[in-house]
């Protein structure tokens, strides 16, 4: 166990180091003036340029620069955005939770809808329900997420007028930034019209979450269904059947755990798909998340923002997947190898 933990910590450290090195070198790879790309400031005069170069250690060796970069990363001094001149750590600490909120809800929806459907389909496979589940899953897996979001907008916002199409909450509600999760922030906010704001925020959440959740739900249905089908074909199920257990008994005693455990890490890996889809959906629904922020940054060639944003998102994704991998291995010693998804 300790050995396992050590190995995973080691993996995590190595990966994060590589990511930091990549993000460090990006400052030199981006086109244009390296000083501006790193500092986010266009020097107005030669003196200012020299002063900035000294401040960012650009006149020193590359190792000093790297050390300085690391030091700044750790101490939270991430520089300023080129386009807004606002501190990057402030911008990210607002934008990133917004994305986290979106993908958390989408993930929860996918789990609560995808797994039960996959279950039923897997147990009674080749029955009408299973056929429906597979069809649903193949069709929804084929939707380009941006098109889906636009269809949702056309139907629910423009035709029916039920739901709003942009942002997290009506801007007239001034919700103080607290945890960054809007629903939570509204609940803890000291405001008389909490209830209205909460309902408003929920209505804003529905469409973006649904757009992202659909694809993930489709994937979860397939994972669960496949896993159950494989499990039910195994010898021990037959053995139990021959001893007179009902399918239901067998399933809830053995099948459930055995078929769910191996797919948990596969589901965790979907964080990458979720993240990509969230980034696209955010731009469509003007959701003020990290994806929208990064895409605006690339439109405006805001290199300091891209550099740090990329580092934050990738470290989050990598840490998340490695942790899930570790947990699932720790709890499922039967598996000696971590397998990647064949859908």
């Amino acid at each position, binding site marked *: 166990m300790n050995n396992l933990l050590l190995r995973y910590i080691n993996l995590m450290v190595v*990966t994060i180091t590589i990511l930091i090195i990549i993000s460090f070198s990006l400052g030199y790879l981006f086109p244009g003036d390296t000083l501006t790309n790193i500092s986010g400031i266009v020097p107005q005069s030669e003196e200012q340029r020299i002063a900035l170069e000294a401040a960012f250690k650009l006149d020193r060796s590359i190792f000093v620069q790297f050390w300085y970069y690391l030091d700044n990363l750790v101490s939270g001094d991430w520089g300023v955005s080129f386009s807004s001149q606002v501190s990057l750590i402030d911008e990210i600490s607002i934008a990133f939770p917004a994305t986290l909120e979106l993908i958390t809800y989408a993930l929860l929806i996918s789990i609560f809808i995808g797994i039960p459907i996959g279950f039923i389909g897997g147990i009674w496979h080749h029955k009408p329900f299973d056929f429906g589940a597979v069809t649903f899953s193949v069709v929804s897996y084929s939707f380009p997420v941006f098109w889906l979001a636009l269809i949702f907008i056309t139907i629910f916002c423009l035709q029916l007028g039920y739901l709003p199409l942009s942002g997290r909450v009506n801007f007239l509600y001034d919700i103080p930034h607290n945890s960054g999760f809007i629903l939570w922030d509204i609940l803890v906010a000291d405001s008389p019209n909490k209830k209205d704001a909460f309902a408003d925020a929920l209505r804003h959440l529905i469409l973006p979450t649904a757009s992202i959740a659909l694809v993930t739900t489709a994937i979860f249905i397939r994972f669960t269904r496949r896993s159950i089908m494989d499990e039910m074909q195994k010898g021990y199920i037959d053995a139990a059947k021959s001893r007179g257990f009902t399918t239901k008994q067998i399933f809830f005693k053995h099948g459930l755990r055995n078929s769910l455990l191996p797919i948990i890490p596969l589901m965790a890996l979907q964080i990458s798909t979720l993240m990509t889809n969230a980034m696209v959906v955010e731009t469509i629904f003007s959701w003020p998340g990290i994806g929208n922020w990064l895409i605006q940054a690339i*439109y405006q060639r805001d290199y300091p923002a891209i550099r740090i944003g990329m580092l934050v998102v990738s470290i989050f994704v990598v840490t998340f997947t490695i942790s899930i991998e570790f947990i699932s291995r720790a709890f499922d010693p039967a598996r000696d190898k971590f397998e990647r998804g064949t859908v």
Partner: protein
Amino acid sequence: MAQFNLYEEEFHPSPLMHIWLEFKRSHFALIGFAILLLFCAIAILAPLLAPYDPNIQNTNAILLPPAWEANGSIAHIFGTDTLGRDVFSRTLYGCQVTFGSSVLLVLIASTIGVALGTLAGMKKGIKSSVLNHLLDSLMAIPTLLVAIIIVAILGTGLWNSMWAIILVLIPQFVHQTRSFVREEMKKDYILLDKLDGASSPRIFWSSILPGMFELLAVQSTLALSVAIIDISALGFLNLGAQSPVVELGASLSQSLEVAYSAPWLVALPGFFIFLMVLSINIVGEGLRTALRNRLIH
């Protein structure tokens, strides 16, 4: 990609035939396959099929509705866009670019991935394990993020967005190949080859690779559907193909400004991307079912 493999029959006629027979049993799979073939035809023949140059602007015929609407014209089956360009031709060319570039990038990614995976699989030891784990962790980084970084360094363009997707797809091929090669290396027929004195490359080419085609076909359909969605998403976000290259995702986002007055301009490209991906997924699904059934029967 599946259909190309099907014609390699002369080497292994019976198993492939078997897959085809199984595959044929599902009507859905066949329909999907037919649509996929249609897209292949469009991708190759777009310049011949398209009635107009996709970039020719006709300011006398702006925003014509499609032919099936009351005031549509048969001269422009899908109508025209805000600059009077023929949408039907643009859709054909768009399919060519979106589908063609996706096929191309899957080919590149699979070649590189298989090569790396084979190396990792045939060599043992700590190096391969570390590399493998690292690759796995980096594989979790979202495509869009990689694309943003590549676009930031190299600028926007179809090729740059393709590189981003290739980079993301490679680890999947590496992983699949590596596990497969590992498993096969343990088997007796490889041992036999070894005892016969076959070199590693020879073992790979004549023993492992032929057996890997099925795995590759399945993995490629998966990768292809991901590639199409990603390339059109990058086009949609204006990070991919740039005018005058006609790409479905990019056309869709350009049409957003007229989403009310000309909804078909948004609906059509999106529908074609959807259909493309759907047909690939159906074929992939059919292929996997066929493979599984072949093993059972």
